[in-house]
């Protein structure tokens, strides 16, 4: 197991590379989901205020 984390002596390069990918790609995914949820919530409150409005 420690062999795995040592990455043949290149741990200092391999793991930061994966961390960067997780942070950037994961961050963009999270941002998309949060923006979508916020938009849905806002539309719901707007339409609750205006009876007769439909999505």
């Amino acid at each position, binding site marked *: 197991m420690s062999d795995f984390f040592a990455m043949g002596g*290149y741990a200092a*390069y391999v793991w930061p590379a*994966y961390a960067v990918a997780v942070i*950037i*790609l994961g961050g963009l995914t999270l941002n998309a989901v949060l923006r979508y949820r916020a938009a849905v919530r806002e539309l719901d409150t707007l339409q609750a205020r205006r009876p007769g409005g439909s999505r």
Partner: protein
Amino acid sequence: MHRFANPARFMRVSTIVLPWVAIVTALVMVAGLVLGFRAPPDYQQGDTVKIMFIHVPAAWMSLFCYSSLAISSAIALIWRHPLAEIAAQQSAPLGAGFTAVCLITGSLWGAPMWGTWWVWDARLTSELVLFFLYLGYIALANAFDDPNRGVRAASVLALVGWINVPIIKFSVDWWNTIHQPASVIRMDGPKIASSILIPLLIMAIAFTLLFVVQLVVLMRAALIERKIRALRQLAAESASTEYGLAGTEASA
């Protein structure tokens, strides 16, 4: 194809399809990572080839996203299609993200293998230019008070900047560079051992699916936000007519 390009139908179809695509994306990603980390170390590069499983798919995605940005921009400019405009605008930050991953992981790979984090050679410089094209598109699209004008100006930038895509692809053949030449997409077939090629291709599929999921979620958000703006405007207009401040039914 045009049948799916209707915003209402896009919302309906994506509601059903999106969860399944998201699940498949996660499964493919896990499979690619498991196979990638079980791949044997390269005889020259040791375990740094593990970086390739994210670096190379991210580089492909940086070009793929830019091409989809340019194509949607062209459709938006020519046919004024609202969905194409939204697709273009929402794919820009995603493409910038993949380009950043490509540049940073490349630097982390270059440090131990080339002995340098960065060189101003053709491949690296043209990829950096691509990153700035994405940022330029985003800045320009948001630079105008009238969002339509901004997106139209940015679309022109996206189309002009497309010339950079083949430059990046062929930079390793046209110029002397520290970067290795293409080893997967080449005329005589891939030149990589299958133990490394298979996880690489699976990761490429996973990254493409991830882009699709992110883009669809962002486009749904943008469509809802557009509806919110329209509702707000409608409410403001009806409020001002009620109080007799401005506007009549005819002008609305």
